[in-house]
């Protein structure tokens, strides 16, 4: 038998504490190289849909806030189209990148509430935002999803949420409305209320 020739993915290494230099240099104090940090603005003009502010903090297993984390999100527009797909809103990038505040650890995204997108079998997925978290001490970027606590009906029918065995953990994927279009989504890396992470 002949072997199947395939390459191995490059092994991940931690982003380390200074990822901001490469990803958000203006934020890190390396100014003048790029005019603006990439991913800073997701809404470029008159994008359709409900504008929301998404705030959160990443906590370690001792309950301490990470002050060196970087969070990226990828989401559909208000109509459920990803940037580049036919009919996607040209005024919305779908991709955002933010660092946690160097003192408090809190991150914030100014974005749109996403529309539903299809699952593989044509059923609809509840509105959600894909999230990727890196920091010192995280060896492989962590993947999770933000769903919306005020979309109960869509969440109940969501094909991914419905396959989660430990129902009591689903709340860790819910962004909670705080009024004025603000939502909170805290991420707990470890411990009692550990956020659900995905192997996708």
């Amino acid at each position: 038998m002949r072997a199947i020739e395939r390459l191995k993915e490059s092994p991940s290494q931690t982003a380390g504490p200074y990822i901001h230099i490469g990803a958000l240099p203006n934020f890190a104090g390396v100014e003048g190289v790029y005019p603006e940090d990439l991913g800073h603005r997701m809404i470029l003009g008159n994008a359709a849909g409900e504008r929301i502010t998404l705030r959160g903090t990443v906590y370690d297993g001792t309950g301490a806030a990470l002050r060196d984390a970087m969070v990226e999100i990828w989401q559909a527009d208000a109509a459920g189209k990803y940037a580049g797909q036919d009919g996607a809103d040209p005024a919305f990038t779908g991709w955002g990148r933010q660092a946690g505040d160097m003192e408090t650890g809190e991150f914030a995204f100014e974005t749109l509430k996403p529309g539903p997108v299809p699952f593989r079998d044509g059923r609809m997925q509840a509105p959600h935002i894909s999230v990727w978290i890196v920091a010192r001490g995280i060896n492989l970027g962590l993947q999770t999803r933000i769903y919306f606590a005020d979309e109960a009906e869509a969440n109940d029918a969501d094909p991914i949420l419905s396959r989660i065995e430990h129902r009591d953990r689903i709340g860790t994927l819910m962004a909670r409305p705080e009024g004025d279009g603000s939502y909170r989504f805290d991420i707990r890396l470890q411990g009692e209320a550990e956020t659900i992470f995905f192997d996708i």
Partner: protein
Amino acid sequence: MSAFQQKQAVTQTPGGHVAPGGGLYARDRTWHPAALTPAYKTSVARSPSRAPISFPTTVSEETGPVFTRDLLGPLDADLIHNYAKSPEGAIGPRIVVQGRVLDEDGRGVPGALVEVWQANAGGRYRHKKEGYLAPLDPDFGGCGRCITDEFGNYEFRTIQPGPYPWPNGPNDWRPAHIHFSVFGQSWGQRLITQMYFDGDPMIWHCPIVGTIPSREGIESLVARLDMAATIPMDARVYRFDIVLRGRRQTLFENRMEGL
């Protein structure tokens, strides 16, 4: 919308349909570092203890932001000069890092955004929170970026970073390294890793390198000195290929020639 905003627009390659049998190859988690690697102490409180939950990839994981070359400035891939005030540029051994971004099937990944960051030749990072006693180089910022060409090729010009001590064990040092952040064509390919240098003895003492389970895996992150490509009287060339997850494809999706 200003012209600059237009340039910042992020677009995804059209036609991201999902064919039957499509989706990303499953990630081999035994090949990557585990989440909990106690010799790298910071991982202890930052590692999830529950198993991650798997599901088949969907349009959310199979699409991703694509970055167009017009967002790049002329010096973005030249770390010797992109922060420098002096015409000579940053201090340190001049190198070119070149390679390809490939997928697991060996196909070049075009249009991949590659972002790099590194310490200066003395091992010091330019960052608000960094306080190593080695001096900053006023002509070195430490960041660069480029987008792969149609074959997946990328290239940076920089100086070789220095090794530096870090608070972990009582006397731990990082080998000289360059951090790489890479976007493929889908969200599920997102990867951050580090590049090391051929022949550096510090590689084998480093607890962060040591999170990678196999020697073969570690060696895949070691850039090779390429003397044939090295530019006489200018800069040595290091060769470093990066592999992202591949994607299942079928003949129905990739029609054969003539069909």
